[in-house]
């Protein structure tokens, strides 16, 4: 019941290799089928995201022996030369494979530390493999454990709570002022990439109304249509600033486009209702003196970048706690694995002893002609009882062993001492 993992990720492979080794849903299904049909793996699960492609499996034989076959399979499946692929691939076995998956689910192995999407991707990969019948008891248990780790890390630590990009930090700050944004209105000045990113975050938060103002009306209309907003004519400040709660500005301008007088006038017209201004332009688009007005909050790129840096540090501080959760679940999984192996081992030992007993009785009782059938049955029964007793005590002791490492060592020692390779479960 060993586990093998072969894969590559953003740390080991450049994007050119990663994109060649990624799996579509159809490829995932086909790879799982082929791996089992060829007898490389008994249970299979493919996890493929933009930053990683990993194959988890339970091999019929030793995991170390199956890994080269798995690498060759990946190379053939994606038509990537082995010399290109092999330098990017990593192989993990058993405990290390379990730990790796749990770290992935926790977001500890992600490009953006603690990102939330990976847990959904692990869940989806597991659901897909499970529906295809590609997983079995070991991978089911392993991935259920991984999902639990991911959930715990997200609820018990702050690894994924704080925004890590300037755009998301700005939107989160707006939420610190207004709470939920689903009844709020936003005005976006500029229609470039940065504006698009912020608008995307605002839309994710369910912003009620979106207005776009840009020097080029065509581009403004494009962005407005993309996110379901409406266009406001450039420079119509009094009308444009009357309703929004959040203003995002990212335009190319030598001088600030929003001066103190414009915002001051707008604030008077809107009865000093709170206004959050996100200035993402360089040079700045909003006069810093605007921040002196009552109920006006102005954040520029540097302010937001500093917050992002603070958040990055805070996330890194959470790594030991998240790692603690991973370790706890690795131990839990290995303990379960050892217990399952113990049951299999005891069954195999029992079968072997019964076989030995049968041949032993045949050889020894043959010359004893004076014994009746009842006597022979009695002797067999006594021997069975003795064998059960012999098996029961060490099995109970092993089951009750608290120290996991000792438990696994003892299970392995028992298996190596008493069973041949053919007989091993």
């Amino acid at each position, binding site marked *: 019941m060993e586990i093998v993992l072969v894969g590559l990720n953003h740390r080991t492979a450049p994007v050119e290799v990663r994109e060649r080794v990624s799996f579509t849903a159809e490829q995932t299904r086909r790879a799982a089928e082929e791996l089992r049909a060829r007898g490389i793996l008994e249970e299979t699960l493919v996890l493929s995201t933009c930053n990683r492609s990993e194959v988890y499996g339970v091999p019929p034989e030793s995991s170390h022996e199956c890994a080269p076959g798995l690498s060759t399979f990946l190379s053939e499946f994606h038509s990537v030369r082995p010399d290109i692929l092999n330098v990017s691939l990593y192989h993990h076995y058993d405990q290390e494979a379990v730990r790796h998956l749990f770290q992935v689910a926790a977001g500890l192995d992600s490009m953006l530390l603690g990102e939330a999407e990976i847990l959904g991707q692990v869940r989806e990969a597991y659901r897909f493999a499970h529906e295809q019948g590609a997983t079995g008891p070991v991978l089911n248990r392993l991935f259920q454990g991984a999902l639990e780790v991911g959930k715990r890390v997200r609820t018990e630590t702050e690894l994924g709570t704080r925004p890590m990009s300037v755009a998301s930090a700005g939107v989160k700050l707006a939420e*610190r002022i207004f709470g939920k944004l689903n009844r709020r209105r936003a005005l976006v000045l500029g229609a470039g990439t940065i504006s698009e990113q912020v608008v995307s975050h605002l839309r994710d938060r369910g912003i009620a109304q979106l207005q776009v103002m840009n020097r080029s009306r065509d581009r403004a209309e494009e962005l407005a249509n993309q996110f379901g907003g409406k266009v406001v004519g450039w420079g119509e400040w009094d009308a444009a600033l009357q309703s929004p709660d959040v203003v995002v500005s990212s335009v190319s301008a030598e001088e600030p486009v929003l001066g103190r007088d414009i915002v001051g006038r707008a604030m008077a017209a809107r009865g000093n209702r709170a206004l959050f201004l996100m200035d993402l332009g360089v040079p700045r688009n909003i006069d810093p003196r605007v921040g002196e007005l009552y109920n006006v909050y102005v*954040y520029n790129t540097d302010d937001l970048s500093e917050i992002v840096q603070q958040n990055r540090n*805070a996330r890194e501080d959470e790594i030991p706690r998240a790692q603690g959760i991973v370790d706890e679940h690795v131990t839990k999984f290995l303990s379960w694995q050892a217990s399952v192996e113990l049951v299999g081992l005891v069954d195999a030992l029992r079968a072997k002893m019964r076989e030995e007993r049968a041949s032993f009785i045949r050889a020894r009782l043959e010359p004893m002609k004076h014994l009746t059938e009842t006597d022979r049955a009695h002797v067999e029964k006594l021997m069975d009882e003795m064998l059960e007793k012999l098996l029961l005590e060490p099995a109970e002791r092993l089951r009750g062993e608290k120290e996991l490492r000792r438990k696994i060592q003892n299970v392995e020692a028992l298996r190596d001492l008493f069973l041949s390779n053919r007989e091993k479960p």
Partner: protein
Amino acid sequence: MNHLFPIFAATAYLLSFGLYVRFLGTGNRFTGRLGTLFLGLGLIGHYFALLDRSRGLHTVPYHDLYGSMSLFGWLLALTYLGLELYHRERSVAAFVLPFILVFFLAAHLAPADRLPPPPVHGMIFAFHVTLSILAYAAFALAFVLSLIFLGEERLLRSHKIGDVVWRLPPLELLDQMSRSSVLVGLISIAMGTALGFVSVDRLPGQNSFYDAKYVITLVVLALYVLYFRLARTTAWRGGRASKLCVFNFVIVVLSFTVVNLYLSHSHRYF
């Protein structure tokens, strides 16, 4: 007197405080829920402690200063819990619990005053006192919420976000919570004051309606009505309304201290 309930309540409040502080630090929802659970248990223990104290002294809880303080603490906890459940926001609890604890412990660690019974008693008088103390508890809660608002707003405006701002409720919600709390206080003080006048009216003999306490209570009522109206306008909503709320509570404290101790002839501790 039985010490079981005060010990139980103090333990529950302390645990609740610890859990709420941990919730503020970690954001762990389970810890927050446990904090609420222990606050609820503390409230139950506190209720029985008050009941036991009243039975022991054969009088109402607000008979002496310490009983009044304990009742104030209990009503503060009750108002806060109501607000937490209504607004589904528990990150301010860590700032409110110390007040509840101080009032509870100060009241229950001190010996009971042996004072003569007040000249007025009966159901209407009991409601008058209880509702007045509830109003002061609600105003105290609004005061704490306004202080948090002003602190958070200051941090946001100065761009010093740190760890704290991510944990506190949004400014808009703090504003709403403060208004809800003042609304509870306004209704209670209006009813309490009206019942107070009814009690005085029923007293035999000549009674003055011009006690300093009456005047300041009406001033407090007027100030909070003003706050409630202004806090709903866009021009005042936020920082200005919070400052007014803090100012109003200073008048409430003045009513409790200077007016009660030196100017009023007909009020003790409420």
